[in-house]
């Protein structure tokens, strides 16, 4: 069943994500990055950061919290979903101790040869309301046939 076009414009409730030093280290290890700025507070301070900072694409973790709510709302399962594009605009690096909230907007729905293309925007902010990152993405949702 195609996604209801009237869902375009929906804004989903903010989702929280607390950033820990250990999660940053785990993520850095998973992408094979040995940089000390992801592990060692002193190394981060030498670059002028108050605590360890996260790799640029770490932002996908809080953003995924927002995607989850949207995907659930639309009644889609992730095995139908193809990540078509992703873009981050960083206002400042994410750092350990951040208490982030992600507010997700379904900007657009377009149909293309039986699939739906969802234009999604996530605004990631910290607990003082300061903008941290804007993430925009297109997800392609493939139609599943009856009984699939």
């Amino acid at each position, binding site marked *: 069943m195609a996604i209801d076009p009237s869902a375009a414009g929906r804004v989903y409730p903010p989702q929280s994500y607390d950033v820990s030093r250990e*999660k940053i280290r*785990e*993520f850095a*290890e*998973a*992408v*094979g*990055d040995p*940089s000390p*700025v*992801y592990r060692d507070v002193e190394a981060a301070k030498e*670059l002028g*950061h108050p605590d360890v*900072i*996260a*790799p*640029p*694409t770490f932002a*996908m*973790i809080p953003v*995924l919290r927002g995607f989850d709510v949207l995907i659930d709302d639309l009644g889609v399962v*992730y*095995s*139908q*979903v*193809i*990540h*078509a*594009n*992703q*873009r*981050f*605009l*960083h206002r*400042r*690096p994410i750092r350990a101790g951040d208490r982030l909230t992600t507010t997700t907007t379904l900007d657009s729905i377009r149909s293309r040869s039986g699939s739906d293309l969802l234009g999604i925007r996530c605004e990631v902010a910290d607990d003082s309301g300061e903008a941290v990152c804007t993430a*925009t993405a297109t997800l392609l949702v*493939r139609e599943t046939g009856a009984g699939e």
Partner: protein
Amino acid sequence: MTDVGAVVAERTFQVTRGDLVRYAGASGDFNPIHWSDRVANAVGLPGVLGHGMLTMALAGRLLTDWAGDPAAVVEFGVRFARPVVVPDDDGGVTVTASGTLSEVRGDGLVGIDVTVLVGDEKVLTQARAVVRAPTNAA
């Protein structure tokens, strides 16, 4: 001063099934097409695919290593043009990433076009970043 058009960084990464499991856990992306051949085949894929975001993260390492400070990466966007099939063997798949200086702006920021290949196929397209240039480079 690095010239526009110059390749500023290039490197090769190996991605194995083990790396996908690790990335799934670290990122929270547990889509089974990234770990189950059965599910991948059932939805018509040629095999287990690497997370597009893992490929993007590897390309990001090129940028953060070049810049010297990960905070220097101000904008980074990609299109996931082709799936990266990761075979269930010890070697996995080889991903090659390179960055080309595309623009030098007056505000200390530079544009980097990123090319990410598996074999001779581009797996990311429209891969562009805006980075605060390291003081010794541009």
